[in-house]
């Protein structure tokens, strides 16, 4: 392939620049717009991409991995254009898709050997030993993939993405469906890879804990639009002075929720007060102070995220009603 004529990159720390990217599935008029004019700049380190199911995260990641071509806009990874210089970009990027398939009858070692051969890696056994150590699967090297647990499969997925030491790692929902212990193990693994390798790791997830624990910067996608990009504390700050702990009843919460006057971040039953009625709860709410009894609390990243997404919902509702009025 074309790499021999290209300058050999000797450094990691490759940024990713996304300018005005849109992606429409289907026909230009009736097709579904999955991404709408997205701008994003990603610097080395762990970058979180948050969003609900269907927000467009996977589409964006697949564009970055060069599997999809954007309908509009430009994606640059390091010095290369992701559309025009697809082969060069593929040498820079390791990709762990959300729904990673494996050859179930092959062993872990055979799987990696085959993928390394496809990749044309020189000294594949050294690469394979490194990635197996990195994901802590060396003792499972001769286990058939079909016999691995879900967490081990995800780690094998990460191992294949790490083959060839790519400076950019794209992981799509890596902890979805894993138990809490495996989730934490995976987060730690990603954090260490980022710290030791000066890599750019783009982590797409709808699990806020993934981002809160390892990412320094993040972006929030919703309905194909970029709602936010910045640091983790900056997103948390969105909910500053808008986050309340409120002892109330389920009925009042439901009434306010139906009127969309506040966002409920969490609800907890009252267990330490024997006089509390069964329908009383401690609600963590985001918005204006719902009641004089509600007390302010320090916001978390989750509060900031809910606050942002909630604003977005309110905006879209307003715009719908504006259009109806017009």
């Amino acid at each position, binding site marked *: 392939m074309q790499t021999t004529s290209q300058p050999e990159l000797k450094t990691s720390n490759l940024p990713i620049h996304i300018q005005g990217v849109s992606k429409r599935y289907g026909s230009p008029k009736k097709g579904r717009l999955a991404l709408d004019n997205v701008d994003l700049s990603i610097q080395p380190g762990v970058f979180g991409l948050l969003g609900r199911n269907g927000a467009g995260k996977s589409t964006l990641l697949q564009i970055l991995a060069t599997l999809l071509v954007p309908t509009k806009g430009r994606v640059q990874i390091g010095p290369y254009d992701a559309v025009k210089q697809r082969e060069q970009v593929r040498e820079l990027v390791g990709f762990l898709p959300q729904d990673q*398939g494996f050859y179930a009858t092959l062993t872990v070692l055979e799987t990696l050997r085959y993928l390394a051969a*496809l990749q044309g890696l020189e000294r594949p056994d050294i690469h394979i030993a490194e990635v197996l150590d990195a994901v802590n699967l060396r003792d499972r090297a001769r286990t058939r993939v079909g016999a691995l647990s879900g967490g081990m499969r995800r780690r094998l997925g990460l191992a294949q993405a790490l083959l060839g030491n790519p400076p950019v790692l794209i992981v799509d929902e890596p902890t979805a469906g894993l138990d809490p212990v495996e989730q934490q193990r995976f987060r730690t693994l990603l954090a260490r890879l980022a710290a030791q390798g000066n890599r750019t790791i783009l982590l797409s997830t709808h699990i806020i804990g993934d981002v809160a624990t390892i990412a320094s910067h993040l972006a929030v996608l919703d309905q194909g639009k970029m709602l936010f990009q910045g640091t983790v504390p900056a997103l948390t700050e969105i909910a500053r002075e808008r986050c309340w702990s409120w002892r109330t009843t389920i009925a009042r919460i439901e009434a306010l929720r139906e009127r969309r006057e506040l966002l409920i971040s969490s609800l907890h039953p009252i267990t330490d007060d024997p006089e509390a009625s069964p329908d009383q709860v401690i609600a963590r709410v985001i918005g204006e102070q719902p009641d004089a009894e509600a007390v302010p609390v320090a916001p978390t990243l989750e509060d900031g995220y809910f606050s942002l997404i909630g604003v977005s919902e309110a905006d879209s509702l307003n715009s719908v009603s504006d259009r109806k009025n017009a």
Partner: protein
Amino acid sequence: MMVTMKSIQWKATRRNWPLRLFLFELRRCISWTWGLPPLLIGMVFVLPRYISLYDSDDPLRYALMLRYCLELMLPFITLTLTVPLLAREWQEGTLTQVALRKPVFALLVLRLLYVMGYLTIWVIVGSLIVLASTRPHPEPHGNSWLWIGQNLGIALAPSLCLAMLAQTLLLIPGNSVVGYMLGLGVWLVNMVVAPFLQGGNYRNILLYLLFSWTQRGFTDRPDDWWQGKWLLLVIALLLMLVQWKLLTDEGRFIRQSEE
């Protein structure tokens, strides 16, 4: 958890086609169906004893039976060898990982070359065995290479065409059952339609169907049976272009579990 990545700095890796990839791919192609071609060649020497289509004392009976078997049965066998070439990747969702490392079309062509190379070997082996056991020479001028070359055309052109047709059709929905069913359907249609065309005004169409050598005697131009073989090869090539187009759309390989 241990993270011991030795060389953290990335450097450009050469994406070549190492020998071990060819060996991996060869291993991935081989299945029990690879036993069918030698079985077919074996049947050439057994069937004349049980089928009374020909004079059992005809000295050319094995030569004729070889061509009948190759033309009628090898396309069907080829289906069983070629339809699964990408089936495992489709089923197990590994096409994205393959596509990110090598063009899937290139791998398909490589695997197809293995299959067609294997079939070629058996056609040649079968022809050589028949030549060794047949007197007089089955080719009127005694040209063995011409006779073997004709056998290759008779066997491989319809086989390749049917394989390409099935492969193309299965790539559209990504389902190997569709490939089998439609490939088998086209093979059956050719078998069923031939008797209806034999006595009619359109009998020369038989020269352009899958089994033109077998049906040549029912046409006005029996010596032109090879024209249909070239046509089948051209169709196979065109279908390959369609496959190339289908396989370069890598977005189709992604399992959409979220969006």
